[in-house]
């Protein structure tokens, strides 16, 4: 009897927990994902020394699910996205995601000791597009603002841009992509991204 009651209670708890997760706000999501990732790094020597395979695996499991990489690619392509065929769009998204993972791996390895603070979220009920503001403090230096542009999807909140000290990742890539497409077309960009991903092994 007691055991049944206990297991019912456990089930109820589990249900509440997953419900809470599904309804997690964008600010809580950013905080949980960031803290989770940082504590995983602090607990693992291989991650601290920047073991490429392990860092990549960490990012793919913990971070990538919370980014809308298709939308990021589309935004980085700007008006060129419409010119690309669906097959090109697929390849671009794959290559861009790989590049972002490498860049993130590198950033995580370089900046793992920084402290993150989270600013209060300004959001109206029913908003589906918000900016979550955070700040990274490094000892002896002015804080760096990192803002995440988040959208609500059927799959929960997802980030589609990261703005570091006023520099939007997506916009910075848009300038790069534009220039490459102007000189060598969409296929040229796919090739440039693929070459980049092959040549510079993530540290």
């Amino acid at each position: 009897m007691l055991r049944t009651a206990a297991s019912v209670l456990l089930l109820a708890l589990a249900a509440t927990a997953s419900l809470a997760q599904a309804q997690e706000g964008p600010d809580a999501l950013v905080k949980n994902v960031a803290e989770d990732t940082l504590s995983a790094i602090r607990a693992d020597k291989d991650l601290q020394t920047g073991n490429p395979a392990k860092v990549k695996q960490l990012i793919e499991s913990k971070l990538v699910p919370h980014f809308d990489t298709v939308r990021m690619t589309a935004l980085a392509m700007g008006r060129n996205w419409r010119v690309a065929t669906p097959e090109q769009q697929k390849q671009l998204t794959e290559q861009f995601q790989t590049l972002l993972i490498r860049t993130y791996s590198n950033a995580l390895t370089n900046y793992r000791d920084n402290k993150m603070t989270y600013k209060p979220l300004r959001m109206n009920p029913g908003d589906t597009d918000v900016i979550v503001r955070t700040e990274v403090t490094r000892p002896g230096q002015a804080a760096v603002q990192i803002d995440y542009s988040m959208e609500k999807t059927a799959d929960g909140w997802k980030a589609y841009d990261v703005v570091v000290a006023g520099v939007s990742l997506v916009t910075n890539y848009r300038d790069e992509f534009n220039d490459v497409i102007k000189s060598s077309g969409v296929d040229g960009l796919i090739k440039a991204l693929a070459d980049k991903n092959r040549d510079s092994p993530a540290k």
Partner: protein
Amino acid sequence: MNRAALPFRRAALALAGATLFAGCAAGPTKEDPLEPFNRQMYAVHQVVDGNVVKPIAEAYVKVTPELIRTGVSNFFGNLDDLFTGINNVLEGNGQQAGDDFGRVLLNSTFGILGIFDLGSMMGINKDHKDFGITFGKWGVPAGPYLFVPLFGPTTVRDGTGTLVRLFIGPIGYIPEVPLRNSIYGVGYLDARAQVLGGESVLDTAALDRYRFLRNAYLKNRQYQIDGKLPAEDDDDAASAGNGVLAPPK
């Protein structure tokens, strides 16, 4: 990386002078009319920095205990705070200037010439302002982008701001030349070492490092002046993200 230019004030000055004349030459983009010239300067920088300065900065990080490096960074950071305070006064941010000067006072005395950042420990936040930002807030346009070897990205406005700081900076008043030059040298090394991490991220991220760095530099400076993100410059792009299968125009 403002104080990075300290040992190179003459070269930087000559270059700024040259640019005033070269500034009217037509070039590829609005912000970077001197791009061909800048790219040559970037290539020069890559050779000298990559073969000499960067290895020294990496060795410095490797052999010097973190505690000492932090002390060195704090010492120069304390001078930065002084100029941040001055610029906050010039920009009319009295309250922030009070914090900045409070930090300088505290760190210069109890923090032993700035080696210990007691201000941060006590929760007085560090800010960053420089003359380039102040000029920008006063409405001075950035002018052409410049890449100065061994110094990095700047603009005519920001470079002028750096020169102003060089001429009024306290280290220039140290009468003993060897001591003064040593302080300049260590300051340069410290500044170079601090950007190693960011440089490594840039190497991984950029398809074209020159372009990526330029665009990021200009946007970051604009952000520091406006305090807000630049407006979306490509309205097609905003809608492009909504539908993956948006029909071609």
